[in-house]
């Protein structure tokens, strides 16, 4: 069985790694005068799998855009292994060892699967063929599709390619934005299993997930955002049992159902 089913095992006890990523008091927005993020802080330690959950519009995707340098925060700092990231070009941030898989538009649709992998491999450095082989070992489904345009892939294959494109850089920290969004249920299982495997092989992961239950079950720790602020953070298990979390999503629905 996969890691998700382990009760209170390694998953819930956070690895005691060093602090890898520290985001402090991030304020950001797109339109002048409107702050989507109103002071968010979070920490990710070496080896952890950390989830950020929260209702739609809580600012989760914006937070990742700020992290990756696509949106400059109005306030706050982001340190990755001691280096300040704010102000760096996205390509420089990637070069430091972060790799990001956006929720949508996460592959280059007019390039073939192989080309998608090749351009990422070229960024990563020499040895492209070996790197691509390694990714194909992780996602064997992509092997048959190498010559197809990425735009023709199914949702699940596309997600695999997007993760493969990110992993080919051999990142220290993998950042995922809703990896299960829009996928059929069996695909969701496959994707989450891959994520758990990748984490077990030593890659630190920070992800946003709408499927809060599944995400928290497999995470070491989780953060809940609401209205652009930190609402709760705790271990994955504890958050799952926290009535406040359910309330944030569904008002009082689920509680009454439990009652």
């Amino acid at each position, binding site marked *: 069985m996969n890691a998700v089913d382990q009760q209170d095992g390694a998953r819930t006890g956070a690895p005691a790694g060093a602090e890898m990523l520290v985001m402090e008091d991030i304020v950001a927005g797109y339109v002048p005068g409107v702050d989507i993020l109103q002071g968010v802080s979070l920490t990710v330690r070496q080896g952890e799998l950390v989830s950020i959950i929260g209702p739609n519009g809580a600012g989760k995707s914006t937070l990742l855009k700020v992290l*990756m*340098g*696509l949106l400059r925060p109005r306030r706050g700092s982001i340190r990755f292994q001691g280096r300040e990231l704010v102000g760096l*070009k*996205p*390509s420089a941030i*990637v*070069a430091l060892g972060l*790799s*990001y898989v*956006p929720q949508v*538009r*996460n*592959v*280059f*649709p*007019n*390039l073939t699967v192989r*080309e*998608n992998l*090749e*351009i*990422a491999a*070229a*960024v*990563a450095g020499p040895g492209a063929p070996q790197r691509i082989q390694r990714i194909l070992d992780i996602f064997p489904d992509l092997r048959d599709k190498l010559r197809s*345009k*990425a*735009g*023709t892939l199914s949702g699940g294959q596309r997600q695999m390619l997007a993760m493969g*494109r*990110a992993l080919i*850089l051999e990142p220290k920290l993998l950042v995922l934005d809703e990896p299960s969004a829009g996928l059929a249920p069996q695909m969701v299982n496959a994707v989450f299993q891959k994520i758990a495997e990748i984490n077990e092989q030593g890659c630190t992961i920070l992800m946003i997930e709408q499927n809060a239950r599944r995400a928290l079950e497999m995470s070491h720790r989780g953060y809940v955002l609401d209205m652009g602020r930190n609402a709760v953070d705790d271990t994955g298990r504890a958050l799952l049992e926290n009535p406040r979390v359910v309330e944030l999503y569904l008002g009082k629905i689920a509680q009454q159902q439990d009652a």
Partner: protein
Amino acid sequence: MLQYVANGIVVGAIIAVAAIGLTLVYSILRLTNFAHGDFVTLGAYTALFINLGLGWRPAAALPVAFVVGAALAILLELLVWRKMRQMRASMVALIVASIGVALALRNLLVFFYGPSPQNFQQPVQRATPFLGLPVTMTADQQFALVASVVLVLAVHALLRYTTLGKTMRALSDNTDLAWVSGIDVDRVVTWTWIIGGGLAAVGGVLYGMTRPLYPELGWHLLLPLFAAIILGGIGHPYGAIAGGFLIGIVQEVSVYFGVPVEYKIAVGFVAMIVALLLFPRGLFGEASYR
């Protein structure tokens, strides 16, 4: 008739070479560059400068023209476009600025060479049968055709087989994703300008081999260029190539059907309007994924 088609293929090939740069710049920078035609003129005049000054044949000026066009494109990228991109300038502001560049460039040539048409200085050429077909071409026309086809194939190879080319295509798909994939977008944009500006200038040299040079040469070519890239689906290099040949042939063949020579540009324009109305995304536009 066949002769007109042949002429059209020569013009079309040259249009294709110049149009590739226009469409690449558009797809990667979202810039509708009205100064592109003047890069074509610049290339032609660079060859004229070398031809008159050093006595070289125009064909020998091709690499120099490429370098001049590329250098100017880089200069403008650094001085103007990068800053406007960072400011997230509107499409209309970008168009107006590119018209400013076009006016300045064109009149720089007027300043040095005057407005009247000029020709390369070389022995008069006789049109000879081409490849045993029942059509005739001058040596320069033949050279222009062959060179254009070679360049088009070279661009194809670049886009298809090199990392740079693949990265450029990636950029036209999604700039943000390119950034977070670790690609230094600014660097690739600079390369796009080198190729786009260089090819436009080279196209100008080839174009100048087939007709007299005058400062509006490239401006008058711009409409057929736009027609070509719109026909091909704006932003698609292969569409631009196909559109270029199509426009070239339609323009020349229209003469055969009795349309006065002066209306060639109008024919290209009408073809473009028809294309826009019938295929708002271009003839080859449907192959794109989002």
